[in-house]
Each structure stands twice: as structure tokens, then as C-alpha cells.
């Protein structure tokens, strides 16, 4: 059974999003880490980098494959989890504590495109 916290929002690409004011925190879901298997490498952006919605902002790699990370909202990176590249396996053990980036949104309307926990659960069961 996948762990899908109720207080978060989700993307179809299996990222979780926590919105607080105009700042969003982004990571990958339990379903994503489970599908990837042993995660061994993470590539994250620099603070200050600007992205549009759906841009690739990083890469997460398991032993088997590399997967792009897509930013679900437009904005500027304000913080990066610097500990993650040194401990990529924490994405396997604690996907919801292992956040990747915090982004200051430039268009908060984009949040309405995200999935609720119920919709995301349905997606995972497809």
C-alpha cells in the first residue's frame, strides 16, 4: 500500500507538493521511490534558478534508470536540500521528509492543476 499523506498535493509525474503561502516544497512520492528502486544519485538545481511550470528541474537516478524531475509550478528556487545528493537513499526510506527544492511561485493559480491525495491514489492504482 502506498503512503499518500492527505495534507499534500500531487502531480501525475509522482511529485508531492506542499504549499505554504507563495512557497512550495517539492519531493517525490512513496509510489515513485518504490517504482524506481534503490536511488543512488540526485541532481538538483541552484538557488536562484528560474523555471516555468513543467520544466525539468533535476534528475533522480536509481541503479536501473534516470528519471527527470518536473516542476509543477512556475517560480524561482529559494532553497535546495543540500543533504540529499550525499544521501540519495533517504528518498527510499523517507520520501516525504526528503524534500528537494523550495520554490517561490510566480503564478499561484497553477496550484489548482495539482491532484488531491484521493485523485493521486486513484492514479497509482491504474
Amino acid at each position, binding site marked *: 500500500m502506498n503512503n499518500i499523506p492527505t495534507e499534500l498535493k500531487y502531480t501525475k509525474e509522482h511529485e508531492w507538493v506542499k504549499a505554504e503561502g507563495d512557497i512550495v516544497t517539492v519531493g517525490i512520492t512513496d509510489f515513485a521511490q518504490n517504482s524506481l*528502486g*534503490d536511488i543512488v*544519485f540526485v541532481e538538483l538545481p541552484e538557488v536562484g534558478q528560474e523555471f516555468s511550470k513543467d520544466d525539468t528541474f533535476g534528475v533522480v537516478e*536509481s*541503479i*536501473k534508470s534516470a528519471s527527470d524531475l518536473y516542476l509543477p509550478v512556475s517560480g524561482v528556487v529559494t532553497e535546495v536540500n543540500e543533504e540529499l545528493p550525499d544521501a540519495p537513499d533517504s528518498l527510499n526510506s523517507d520520501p516525504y521528509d526528503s524534500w528537494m527544492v523550495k520554490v517561490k511561485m510566480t503564478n499561484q493559480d497553477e496550484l489548482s492543476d495539482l491532484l488531491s491525495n484521493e485523485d493521486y491514489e486513484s492514479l497509482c492504482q491504474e
Partner: protein
Amino acid sequence: MKQTSLTQAHRDLKAKMADFAGYEMPIQYAGVKAEVEAVRNNIGVFDVSHMGEFFVEGKDAITFVDYILTNDFAGAQTGKAVYSPLCREDGTVVDDLIAYKLADEKIMICVNAANIEKDWSWISSKTDGFDISLTNKSDDYSLLAIQGPKTEKVLASLGFESVTNAQYYSAYESEWSGCDVIMARTGYTGEDGFEIFGGHETIKKLWSQLLNADVTPCGLASRDVLRLEVCYPLYGHELNDELTPLDAALKWTVKLKKEKFIGKEALDGLTSKYRLVKLSIDKGIPREGYPILNEQDEVIGKVTSGTMSVTNSQGICLGLVQRERFPENKKFKIQIRKNIIDTNYHTKPFVSGGHK
């Protein structure tokens, strides 16, 4: 999708399953890392029943197999296995395989699952003039690869007494639990181990007993990491229909002193188009298809297999580089997405392995 005799057993263990050469195969169980570590330090078992088994029997069996293979099969002792490319007249590779000399008139050939039909069609078209019978028994056999330093001890404890005296790359017919099996001290991980061919029910029983003996079930993902750590080539990656064995650094398997074999004229005096390189990087993971560049950032080749080495904790790869552009200074870079990364050039496999 075809299944092996163990498909249900894999599902019961909650393995991640995927299509591999038309078979539903386990990719991983608990995790790739744990499986690689089990094989390097302890013992693991792979269901590789999707591989194909052909039998060549009769008076000319050795002569025929020696003729279709580039490696020296006639010169191998009875009871030995021989790794060899199977080439066309123009020197390109149909497949790479292992031929097992079980008796002077009985040879088993084990081929890659993805190439069973192609190999069968090729080999059976070459039998004219040879007094042999050729049979495809791929559907009759299941196959387990048991690999790791504790293999001999565990198999002996399960009643395989013969393993204690078996040499590396030996192959012989035997019995286990009242059933016929074919034993081979071969494998694809670089570690000591056996490949055991048998009927479906025999192999199902063996699988259960191995798991009861705390042998780690391993999937095809860890198998790929293990083979790449010891730099074994894989058909579809370092070898394919367009390349010769020379392109994939397999000159040692082409015995031009043999009187005749398919591909001899083409391979005699041929210069390879590519050179196989072993590269590692300190940050990131090189993946198949990534460009390999020289010091001037010119593309001179590409990665053919790449992964994260669990044993060395670094990104490793094999790649083919154009022979005429191979840099004398042996400085190579790899382009990973937008980044161009320096590499370490290796002359030896990334992991030394521990086979007998």
C-alpha cells in the same frame, strides 16, 4: 508473454516483473543493492530459464560446433564449457553463447533468450554435410544460476556432492534427487557459481530448497550490474548484428589458427571499427547511448552499457569508441544531459570477482 516454471514463485515473492525477450521475468526482489551484495559476498540465485538450450548429438557433433564457433571448441577437453561468438560469413555476430562438451557426441549450446529463434534458424541452416542431430530443447529446460562465494558449500549441503571437485568452466551430466540435471561451473557475475539445467519440476524443487537455505533470490537488474562490474559483454549492447567480435574486444575468442570456421576469411586480417573502453566517473551515472568525447569535446563514441556499481559506489560503463579516433592520451569525457564529465580510464574490470 511467455512464463518460466518459476513465474508464480516470483510473483509470490512480490518480485518486480517485466517483459524480457518475450518472457515475464523478475527484475528485482528486495532491491538491487542487496542482491548484488549477496552475490559478491555470500550467495544468490537467478532464474534464467528464458535462455535457450540446443543439443548437438552424433558422430560429427564436435566438428560441427567447432565449425560454427570462432573459439576453439575441438581443442577443449570433454567436460568443459567454451564461451564463443557465433559469427556470420562476414564476421558479424549472430550471438554470443556457451557450448558445453558433455560427451564426445553430445554438446549443449546455451544461447541468449532474445536470440533463440535467430540462432536456431542460423545454426540449423549450416548442418549440411555433418552427421549430427540438432534439437531445440529450450522449452524443456529450466535453468538456475547460483552465484557467489558460498555456492559450493550450499550446493554440497543440498546433495550436489560433485560440485566439490568440479573445475571452473567444467560441465557434466549428473543426478539430483533422482532427476537428471546438467551442471556447469559457469556464470555471468564474475563470482564462483554453478548453472544448473533441469526439467521444470526439478528446478522448481531446487529453487525452493535454495530459498530455504537462505540463498538470496536475485533479478535481472542485479545480474546486469554484476556482469558490468566485471566487464562481461552483453548481446544487444557491446555486441550486435553489425559488429564483429574484434569490435567488442573479443579477439581472444577468435582462433584464426583453426582450419576452418564460419567467418574466418572475413575476420582474418580485419581491423576492428571500434575499441571497447571501460570508464568510470566520480559523480553521476553513465547510461547507454550517452556520447563519449575526447579531450577536445568531440564525440568519438558512445556508452553501450552503464550503471551504478554497487560494489565500488561509482558510475561505471562500457563504451565503443571509433578506432581511428581513439585518443593516444586515453582521456575520455562523457556527456550526461547538458554536462560534460571527466572519466577515469580502466584497463582492468571494475571489480575483480572471485571465480575459481
